[in-house]
């Protein structure tokens, strides 16, 4: 699901680069379909499961049209002060067959990055965006040693293995310097890493996740360095497919529960408000064993609504998620209601706290929720 959203972001952002006065979406400007250039002909496609090779697959897959490296996490100081963060790098290929060019500015890949910090105690949410072509080393990605960067925003490994992986990002006095130390084994999403988005063949992505990665480092805010530790979630996905018909948005949950298990679930919403049958999830236990969750195995109820003062968009910001077969029932509450990214494209993505029970025993947790398609 992130695939669809990422493409939307990237393409609109590319359009906006030339039409900052906004209004570019209304007539005369770029049209998404035009920019997509139809069906992505010429690019590689995710048609069937493939063997994943690490660490090579942590690096870029330029034959596919789009790709991302997606870090979110919940962090605390020794005194218990909570911070949430998101750092995402998106890659988008312009052409399947780039011409040979005689200039260092030649670019066939465009990178975009989003960085957010949720300051729960301070009640503030900070969001930043950057874009760049991959020329002159301004942005790029590589596998060994791993690195993905957009200017001085970086996620970088030291050696052949991905971990320990260092994230360093700073903007307008807000900075994050984390070391991700590793955790559970990689989780291949969908069918052995092939995540189908609709019934159409090739409308799928390759998708794997690190669902719980021990993290420690510093958060800098208003001139103060806060030593923090916590856990991060790392999503990797690449594909060539375009939007599925009839889908208007999605609600995505990545939860790390206190019993050591992690739960990912996305609900794809259709125009009539119903849940698309391609919605799916996965439960990862403390040892990394996975259980796939079909769309009808999960019950999701939206709680109260929050209206963004900045954009007027109305988001549901409280949830009841239950998996009856597992006797799992969770209340999900945002750390702050306002975790809306009002960037090239608007969406809500924020740190949440989890409170609930499993098998009758109380169960807490932390996580991240992403909401798209709520207008504004």
């Amino acid at each position, binding site marked *: 699901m992130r695939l669809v959203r990422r493409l939307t972001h990237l393409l609109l952002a590319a359009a906006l680069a030339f039409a900052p006065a906004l209004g570019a979406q209304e007539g005369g400007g*770029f049209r998404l379909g035009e920019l997509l250039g139809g069906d992505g002909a010429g690019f590689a496609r995710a048609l069937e499961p493939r063997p994943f090779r690490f660490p090579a697959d942590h690096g870029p897959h330029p034959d596919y049209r789009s790709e991302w490296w997606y870090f979110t996490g919940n962090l605390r100081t020794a005194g218990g002060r909570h911070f949430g963060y998101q750092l995402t790098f998106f890659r988008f290929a312009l052409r399947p067959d780039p011409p040979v060019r005689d200039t260092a500015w030649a670019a066939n890949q465009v990178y975009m990055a989003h960085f957010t910090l949720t300051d729960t105690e301070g009640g503030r949410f900070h969001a*930043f965006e950057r874009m760049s072509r991959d020329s002159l080393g301004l942005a790029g990605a590589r596998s060994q040693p791993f690195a993905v960067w957009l200017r001085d925003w970086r996620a970088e490994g030291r050696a052949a293995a991905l971990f320990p992986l260092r994230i360093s990002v700073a903007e307008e006095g807000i900075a994050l310097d984390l070391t991700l130390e590793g955790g559970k084994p990689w989780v291949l999403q969908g069918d052995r890493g092939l995540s189908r988005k609709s019934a159409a063949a090739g409308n799928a992505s390759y998708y794997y996740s690190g669902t719980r990665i021990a993290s420690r480092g510093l958060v800098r805010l208003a001139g103060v360095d806060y030593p923090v530790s916590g856990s991060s979630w790392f999503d990797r996905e690449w594909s060539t497919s375009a939007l599925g018909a009839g889908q208007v948005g999605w609600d995505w949950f990545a939860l790390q529960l206190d019993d050591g298990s992690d739960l990912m679930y996305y609900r794809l919403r259709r125009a009539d408000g119903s849940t698309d049958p391609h919605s799916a999830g996965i439960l990862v236990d403390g040892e990394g064993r996975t259980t796939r969750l079909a769309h009808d195995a999960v019950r999701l109820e939206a709680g109260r609504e929050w209206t963004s003062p900045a954009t007027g968009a109305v988001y549901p910001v409280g949830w009841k998620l239950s998996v009856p077969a597992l006797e799992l029932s969770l209340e999900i509450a945002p750390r702050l209601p306002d975790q809306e990214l009002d960037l090239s494209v608007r969406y809500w993505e924020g740190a949440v706290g989890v409170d609930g029970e499993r098998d009758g025993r109380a169960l807490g947790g932390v996580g991240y929720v992403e909401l798209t398609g709520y207008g504004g």
Partner: protein
Amino acid sequence: MIPVLWRASLRFLWRHPWQTGLTVLGIALGVAVVVAIDLANDSARRGFSLAAEQTAGRATHQVIGGPRGLDESVYRALRMAPGDLPMAPVIDDYVAPAADPGRSLRLLGVDPFAEARVRDYVRVGGGGTPVTRLLAEPGAVLMAAETADSLGMAPGDRLEVLARGRTATLTLAGYLETTDPALRRLVRGLLLTDIASAQEILGEQGRISHVDLVLPAGAAGGAALERLRALLPAGAALLPAEQRSAALGRMTEAFHLNLSAMSLLALLVGTFLIYNTTTFSVVRRRPLLGGLRTLGVTRRQIFRLVLAEAAVTGLVGALLGLGLGVALAELLLRLVTRTINDIYFVLTVRELSITASGLAKGLLLGVSAALLAALPPALEAALAPPRAILNRVVLEARLHRGVRWSAAAGAGLALVGAAVALVPGHSLGLGYVALVALVLACALLTPKLTLLLVAAFRPLLAFLLGALGNMAARGITAHLSRTGVAAAALMVAVAATVGVGTMVASFRDTVVHWLDESLRADVYVAPARTAGGAAWPDLGRGFAERVAGLEGVAEVATYRRVVVESASGPTQLVAASLPASERERFRFRSGAPDAAWAAFRAGGAVLISEPYAFRHGLGVGDTLELRGSAGPVRLPVAGVFHDYRSDQGVVYLDAGLYRRLWNDEAVSSLGVHARPGADIGQLMARIRALPAGGLALAVRANRELFNASVEVFDRTFTITTVLRLLAVVVAFVGVLSALLALHLERAREMAVLRVNGLTPRQVWLLVTAQTGLMGLTAGLLAVPAGLLMARVLTHVINYRAFGWTLQWTTDPAILGQAVLLALAAGLLAGVYPAWLMARTPPALALRGE
């Protein structure tokens, strides 16, 4: 004001339509010239700031580099540094359509991802998927639909262009579209392309023109400035954006000022005209005004009446002048922009911008000139006792006394003008003060000198025409109240043509002589260059060596021409490797040639041209500071030489020194000296046959370059010639109006003469002899006055505006033409009054009185 007075006034104006009409026309012409120049200047300036805006956008600062711009790694270093300041790399150059090499199109290479926060670009539409294509397709460009139309292109079409001496192919990927008229003007004539394509098109891989930055105001901006400066290599500089564009804009200020000053000359002549007419109308209405005064009309009322008449005339004339001025401005704008393009930089001004302030200024000038000119006659009319107004003799007698006063004032003013002109300094404004003082002085002296000259001519006229000749001469003297001012107006106008003509002739002779001296080589070789192109393309040192090895070649001088930017504006550098025969062409203004050349060749010192020395206040022994590729460079000045190529000046330095300091091996042009007896045509063919790495070469023989240079010079002065002619037209109208007045007034006198036996033919003779004599007198007086103006223009104004020393040339043809012009104007102006007087039956004229 009593309505009766108004009616009397109106009736008078109405009864003298020619008189009124000519005055209005005179004011109209004067205002028209001022307005036209003002609008043309304004439009050119606006065109310039528009061009600056095309690239500047919201940029507050720019990082600039050396002669070839910046290495792209400078941008990388700035961009990779922490923080997210808006910054954008830019490649800014000009290309020309291969099919129309005379046309310049601005090529702007940008990184679309960096642009949004620096420049407001417009919606991109048409042609499919422009941004993707712009990035992914080599040579893809965007342009306004209007520009595409003018090139006959539709999206998808290709365009061959000449870029830095090479040909490249562009593809129209889509239109730059906008509904905002300000943005639409910005994108006119602009080719927008991705920075990767721009490098490929220009063959400038690894280089960018500059980096635009948007820094916050205040302390945060200062801190950012410090941080960024620390990242820059020695050859780069971070400057406020407006500083650079202002320095460029200042280049043309002297040019604009000179044009404005010349336009005021036309108004000055127009002012004489009003003075003349108003004086006449007062003189003519003396019985009426005297009668009114005896009937109890107050002085104040008379004073107001005369001024009001002048104001109305001035207003009507000025209004007419505005319309005329706008029309004239269209023509002048073309001349102004062509001159700027020839001398300074590429400037495309498509439309005249008519500003309310420009029009208001013209209106105000016209009306104030009219009021000012009417002030003395109005006072005259108001202050005289009622009886005296009725007495014409009193008036003429007073005027004759006035002639002495005016001559004395003129002499005094002349001294003041001379003193001001001789004050050393750089103030162009003071130069014009001196010029105006001298012109006014000449005008004030004119009545007295006219009397003297007419007295001198009287025996000759008497000899030629007998009694009629005597009468003609005496007529002028007796009616000095009108003839004096008319003669002064004509004299000023003709003097202006002499002055400006002599200045231009001196200038031209100097340049032609200098070109003759300085074009020593037999053949000049340079890459075909697009007007306005940022840097001269590189011929390659190998090419220079191959030329030197050709049969029939004795010596080759190599030149590298570059512009080094700094906070005080651009400096043109010429790095030269000069054989002895080339060195001889330099004429030094200061510095001993032998010592200067020794210092130059030893590789430490520079030679600077006269305007450069003037503008930067440098002389032999001073040190010149420039931005080298490894930091500031301080070079001693060994000599100042005459050079008329650029009014901004030029700095010559040894090629080896330049290579060391700027790390640039390129060669821009060659001067090829043939062996004695070698066939130049064959030599040129051999040079053209050499492989030049895809460069289109301009190989020109000595004479060709000479002629082309002179042609540019002449083109530059077209606008001066036009202004000069306009001043003459205004003066002619003035003379016509003055003589008409005079002779209409003398209708009764003529009638008496006719009754006493003067034949119509004799009337003709009398009138034309008189006007001819006036013309001749004015023409003769205009010669010394004009030469005086020329002196000031050449040695004060020109030097202060451009820093050039010009040789003084007096062209007898110009002087002769001026006298003939004045004579012809006088004779022509006599035709209508003579015809009128000869035709009117004497009885009617007598009854009319």
